[in-house]
Each structure stands twice: as structure tokens, then as C-alpha cells.
């Protein structure tokens, strides 16, 4: 009787094993909500220039991303931006050239009539006119860079939850905490530094250059050079420190996550009979999908940052080119003071360009690092 009972029980268990299959599925985490929020944080002009299918059902579309990141698409975008920036640059160059031409004409007339101190006053009038034109142009550039840095901060802020979600789903909780924490710290620090230090220092450099030229004394040249060196050194220092700290924290955290998750996988595989290996294979399958998602989100972030900063970068580049051309024109027309002023303004505009490029490169470096590191699950 007992034997029959145990035999029937064993048969029942065997039948149950065949009738109740357990399926293991690997599903990607749902990051559609943070992605939609990130997409909404982008400026409208940038969103309009992207392919509509970039976010397909709230998830990044790899084909649309490949199309948007292709060389023809990027060159077309650069061409459009250049076409928008050229008329403004041309008008500025014409205004400066007319001021220089007038100054040269006045110089020759004053020499012809031996105007003396009367000629000095008239030349001062010319200098005021040129100084006004140039300072107004520099103010426009400062406004452009300030607006761009603000937009950059908003976009990166919106990107952080997406990155954190993808990294955490892949078992890289340490990496998510370390990298997103470092990025957030850099964002706050960068915002304060740009607003309270870099931009006011660059504005002071413009003012100092104009004052040095108007006074014609040449005593402020040393102060201006020192100021430019301080700005350049500070920017380089900040970029280097951020890159180093971010790289160390992210790589170390990624290594720790990888060790932790592999340890757990080994323990599960050894301790759970039969199903232990199935669980391990399922996790590996999920990891491939997660890596694909991480890379796509990271690359989309890099592309969007580049497209966001392209118009102000090209605008600044054109502006600097105009100042350098005008400097050559001043040399040809024999205006030494005008040549020095235009040279100084071109040099300070270079610092402004460096500030913008440095900020976006730091963010791109962070995203590239996050794309390159492996997830904790081993993908």
C-alpha cells in the first residue's frame, strides 16, 4: 500500500514537470517616460530638425538615429546653420570696414590740413563709433553663449534619469549612482562657475580691451593679458579635474558592479539545481538587449548635444573670422590702434568659443565613457 502510494506520487510529480513548463523571458526596462521627458526638454528648433521617427513608441529608433548621425545629414545641418549665420557676419564686417575706411579718410584729411588737436578730437569720434559697433557685437555673442549654456544644462539634466534607469536595469547601480552623481555635481558647479566667474571675466576682458584702446595709453595691456591667461588656465583646470574625477569614479564603480553581479550569478548558478544555468543564460540575453539600449541612448545623447551646440559654435567661429579679417583690413588701411583693438577682441572671442566647446566636450566625454563601459551583467 505504501509502495503504491509513493509510486503514484512520483508519477504525479513527473507528469507535473512535463505539464507545467517554466519559461524565462528577458525583457528590456521601460525607459519611455524619462526618454519622453528628455525629448520634451530639447529646444523646439532642434526637435524640428530631427527625423520624426527618432523616438519610436517612446524608445530610441536605431535606424532613425543612424540616419540623423550620418555624414550627409550632419553636413546638411552645418550648411543650414552657416547659411543663417553668413548674412549677420557679412553685415558686421561691412559696418567695421566702413568705420575703418572712414577713420583712414579722416586721418588723411587731418594730415592734409594739419588739423593738430582738432584732428585728435575727430579721431576720438571715430574711435567711439568703432568701439560702440564692436562692443554691441560682443554683447550679442555673450548673450548667445549664455543662452546655449543654459539650454545645455537643461538637456543634460533631462538626460540623467534616462541614463540612471538604463544603467540600474543592467545591474550597474554603483555606476549609475557614481556617474549621475558626478554629472549632477559638475552641472551645478559648472553653472555657478560660468555665471559667476567665466562669463563676467570675459565681459570684463572686452571692457578692458575697449578702455585700453580708447585711452591710447597702452597701460592696460598687461592687465588684459593677465586676465586672459587666468581665464584660459581656469577653464583648462576645471575641464581636466572633471574628466579625471568622472573617469575614475565611473570606471571603478563599473568594475565593482561587474564583480558583484558576476558573484551573484555564480552563486545562483551553483546553488539552484537545473534552473541555475537557465537563469544565467536568461540574464546574459537580457544584458545584450540592455547594452544595445544603453549604447543607443548614449549615442543619441551625444548626437543631440552636438546638434544643440552647433549653431552658436558656428556663429562664434564666423564672428571671430570677421574680427580677424577686419584686423587685416585695419593693418592695410594703416590704423594701428584699430588693428590692436580688433586683435584683442578676436582673442577674447576665442576664449568664449573655448568655454562653449569645453563645456560640451566634457559632457560628450562623460557620455562616451558611459557608452564604452560594460554593464554589471557582463554585456
Amino acid at each position, binding site marked *: 500500500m505504501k509502495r503504491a502510494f509513493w509510486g503514484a506520487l512520483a508519477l504525479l510529480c513527473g507528469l507535473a514537470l512535463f505539464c507545467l513548463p517554466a519559461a524565462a523571458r528577458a525583457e528590456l526596462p521601460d525607459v519611455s517616460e524619462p526618454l519622453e521627458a528628455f525629448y520634451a526638454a530639447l529646444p523646439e528648433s532642434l526637435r524640428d530638425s530631427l527625423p520624426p521617427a527618432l523616438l519610436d513608441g517612446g524608445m530610441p529608433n536605431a535606424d532613425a538615429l543612424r540616419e540623423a548621425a550620418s555624414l550627409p545629414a550632419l553636413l546638411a545641418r552645418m550648411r543650414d546653420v552657416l547659411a543663417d549665420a553668413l548674412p549677420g557676419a557679412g553685415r558686421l564686417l561691412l559696418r567695421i570696414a566702413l568705420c575703418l575706411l572712414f577713420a583712414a579718410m579722416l586721418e588723411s*584729411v587731418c594730415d592734409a590740413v594739419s588739423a*593738430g*588737436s582738432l584732428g585728435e578730437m*575727430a579721431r576720438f*569720434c571715430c574711435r567711439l*563709433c568703432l*568701439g*560702440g559697433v564692436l562692443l554691441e557685437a560682443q554683447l550679442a555673442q*555673450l548673450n548667445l553663449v549664455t543662452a546655449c549654456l543654459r539650454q545645455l544644462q537643461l538637456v543634460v539634466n533631462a538626460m540623467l534619469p534616462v541614463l540612471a534607469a538604463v544603467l540600474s536595469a543592467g545591474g550597474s547601480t554603483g555606476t549609475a549612482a557614481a556617474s549621475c552623481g558626478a554629472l549632477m555635481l559638475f552641472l551645478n558647479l559648472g553653472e555657478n562657475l560660468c555665471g559667476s566667474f567665466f562669463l563676467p571675466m570675459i565681459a570684463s576682458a572686452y571692457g578692458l580691451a575697449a578702455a585700453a584702446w580708447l585711452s591710447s595709453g597702452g597701460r592696460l595691456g598687461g592687465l588684459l593679458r593677465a586676465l586672459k591667461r587666468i581665464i584660459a588656465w581656469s577653464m583648462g583646470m576645471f575641464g581636466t579635474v572633471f574628466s579625471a574625477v568622472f573617469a575614475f569614479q565611473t570606471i571603478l564603480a563599473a568594475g565593482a558592479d561587474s564583480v558583484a553581479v558576476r558573484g551573484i550569478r555564480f552563486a545562483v548558478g551553483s546553488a539552484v539545481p537545473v534552473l541555475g544555468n537557465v537563469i544565467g543564460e536568461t540574464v546574459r540575453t537580457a544584458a545584450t538587449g540592455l547594452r544595445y539600449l544603453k549604447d543607443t541612448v548614449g549615442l543619441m545623447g551625444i548626437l543631440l548635444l552636438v546638434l544643440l551646440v552647433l549653431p552658436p559654435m558656428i556663429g562664434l567661429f564666423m564672428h571671430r573670422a570677421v574680427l580677424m579679417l577686419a584686423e587685416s583690413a585695419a593693418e592695410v588701411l594703416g590704423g594701428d590702434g584699430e588693428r590692436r583693438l580688433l586683435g584683442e577682441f578676436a582673442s577674447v572671442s576665442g576664449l568664449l568659443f573655448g568655454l562653449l566647446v569645453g563645456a560640451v566636450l566634457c559632457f560628450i566625454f562623460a557620455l562616451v565613457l558611459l557608452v564604452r563601459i560594460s554593464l554589471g551583467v557582463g554585456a
Partner: protein
Amino acid sequence: MREMDSFKLCAAAFLCTVVIVAVRQYRQDFALTARMAATVILLSFSAALLTPTLRWLEQIGGEAFDSASAGVLWRALAIVCLVRVCSAFCRDCGEPGVAACLEFAGKAELMLLCIPLLERLLQAVRTLAAW
């Protein structure tokens, strides 16, 4: 400047000088009037030569050069030329005091012209300082 205009200008200047020398020889009291007339004629000739240049600059400037700045610079140029020529005339007539006062008045007028440009510059500097 066309070549014929240069010839005309040189011929006019030569003629004026000859007339003034002749008048000074025969009627000393009319010499000043003759000198004044010669100065006005030559100055008008020069202004007529400059007019196409000014019109050309205005044309190529167009919207790029705002009319306020352009107006100030043209007036500055005109003041320098006029005041300098008149003060030289006064000195030639033996009145350096009058010439000095005229030049001082010219500088004061130029300073008045600078005021709108200075205001524009100061506004830009104030905006930079508030950054």
C-alpha cells in the same frame, strides 16, 4: 577724382593766386576780399569733388552703417575741414587770436558730437559690467 577736375582745380588755384597778387599790388584794401573769395571758390570745388565719394560710401553702407553714427562722422569731417581752413585764413590775415578761438569752438562742437556715441558706448559697458 577725375584728371580733368585736378587740372581745373590747379588752374583755379593758380588763377586765384595771380589775381590776389595783382590786387595786392594795385589795391591793398581789396586783397582781403580777393583772398576770401579764392578760399570760398576752392573750398566749394573740393566739397563738390568729395560729394560723389560720400554718396558712394552711403550706398555701400546702406543698412549696415546706422544713420546716427554716419551723420556724426560726416559732420566731424566737415567741421575739421571748415574750421581748419578758416583758422588758417585768419592767421594769414594776421589774426591768430581769432584763429585760436575758432579752433576752440570747433573742438567744443566735436565734443558735443561725441556725446551720443559716448552714451551708446557707456550703455554697452554698463551691460557688460552687469554680467
